[in-house]
């Protein structure tokens, strides 16, 4: 009987003592968390892509609520819808963010591009690049093992049959994760309203580039000479398009017709691609 009472007393005492300690600690070490942070976090797309510049959606929510200088429209995947919601919640003004999509600057499919060696190793672009710059003859081209597709938080990239990734423009939010993980830096972010795209990344001299890939940009400059708006420059044997001039001023893309290797092509928005597929 005595033991039973002792048990009750000791257990009760331990419970009460720790209960009290925890209650005091809760008050004493209480940290104020602004409830608005949680509300903003709920609105964000939760891709944890980092395009806003913060490590994850929770950190951006905290920054935008607590820091008056952080703009509410940093969430690239969220686009206008999220920017407006965040602006409303935090009482800040949001400006229009440009919609971007990912673009793989390479048309070196398995049929067009030459391979320099047979690669048998880890099925990852970064790993393959460590071995003499990758199994493709052109050392600037897409290696094709899908590191970008695996890292896309929105599943917008799929590896195609021909060794190049295909971008689903509807799913692509323009967050830029693929651009940062690609070891060849062959993915660029293009505005959704772009008119032309250069499907090549090769800095090799024309003759060498052509030997390694039939669809390469040889840096001949025909596109540059034919562009009446001065939107194209040839830098390091590669055509570089100034997107601003091309978007705003160009009315007819003469460059596309003049390219001898078809490296520069018309940029087709997803809506037209889907419509074309539906008809054809």
């Amino acid at each position: 009987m005595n033991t039973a009472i002792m048990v009750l007393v000791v257990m009760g005492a331990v419970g009460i003592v720790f209960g009290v300690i925890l209650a005091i600690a809760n008050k004493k070490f209480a940290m104020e968390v602004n409830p608005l942070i949680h509300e903003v976090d709920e609105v964000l797309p939760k891709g944890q892509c980092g395009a806003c510049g913060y490590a994850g959606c929770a950190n951006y929510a905290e920054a935008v609520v607590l820091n008056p200088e952080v703009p509410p429209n940093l969430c690239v995947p969220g686009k206008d819808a999220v920017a407006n919601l965040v602006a409303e919640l935090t009482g800040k003004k949001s400006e229009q963010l440009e919609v971007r999509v990912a673009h793989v600057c390479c048309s070196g499919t398995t049929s067009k591009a030459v391979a320099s060696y047979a690669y048998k190793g880890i099925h990852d672009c970064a790993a393959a690049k460590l071995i003499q710059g990758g199994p493709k003859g052109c050392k600037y081209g897409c290696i094709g093992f899908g590191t970008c597709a695996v890292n896309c938080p929105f599943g917008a990239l799929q590896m195609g049959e021909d060794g190049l990734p295909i971008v689903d423009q509807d799913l692509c939010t323009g967050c830029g994760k693929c651009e940062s993980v690609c070891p060849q830096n062959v993915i660029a972010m293009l505005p959704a309203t772009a008119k032309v795209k250069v499907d090549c990344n090769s800095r090799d001299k024309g003759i060498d580039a052509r030997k390694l890939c039939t669809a390469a940009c040889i840096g001949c400059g025909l596109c540059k000479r034919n562009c009446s708006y001065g939107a194209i420059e040839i830098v390091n044997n590669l055509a570089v398009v100034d997107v601003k001039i091309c978007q705003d001023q160009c009315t007819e893309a003469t460059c596309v017709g003049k390219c001898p290797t078809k490296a520069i092509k018309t940029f087709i928005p997803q809506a037209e691609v889907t419509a074309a597929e539906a008809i054809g």
Partner: protein
Amino acid sequence: MAEYFTLFIGSVIVNNFVLTKFLGLCIFFGVSKNLNASVGMGMAVTSVITLSSILAWIVYHFVLLPFGLTFLTTIVFVVLIASFVQLLELIIKKQAPALYNMWGIYLVLIATNCIVLSVPLLSVESDYAFVTSIVFAVGSGMGFALALILMASLREKLAYADVPKPLEGMGIAFIVAGMLSLAFLGFSGML
């Protein structure tokens, strides 16, 4: 001094808590996918084991033993450890936010883990003195951290290996852990 050293080496290598005693397996398999997380977890577990071991020893020798209530050991230890870890988390969150960002989240995961409970229980069973139980606690934490880091390094490589589909994930992890355990069997009988 020599017996402390023997005890330490014993609990790190010979009687490794994960690979020989098979304790703390859920965190072992849960966190070992990532090497950085594993290092943080190892540190968190070592600190929690040591601190709660000290607390448990004090409660055992000054409350349970004098009142002849040693049969309450398990339950009192559980309550003790759970509340202590809660307290620790509150303190760290407030006083050291940088530390909390690094491994604060693991504290909740190890609050009632079997390895944290078993270390005080075993040191009470073996009737260790105060300093001995501390050495034992630090040793077991280090042993756990060692096993975790080894496993994490192996699993990171495994992610790229050609594993048969049915064994992917947990299957191959258990097999590898078994092999690690077999390897550590070589240390038995050393002390």
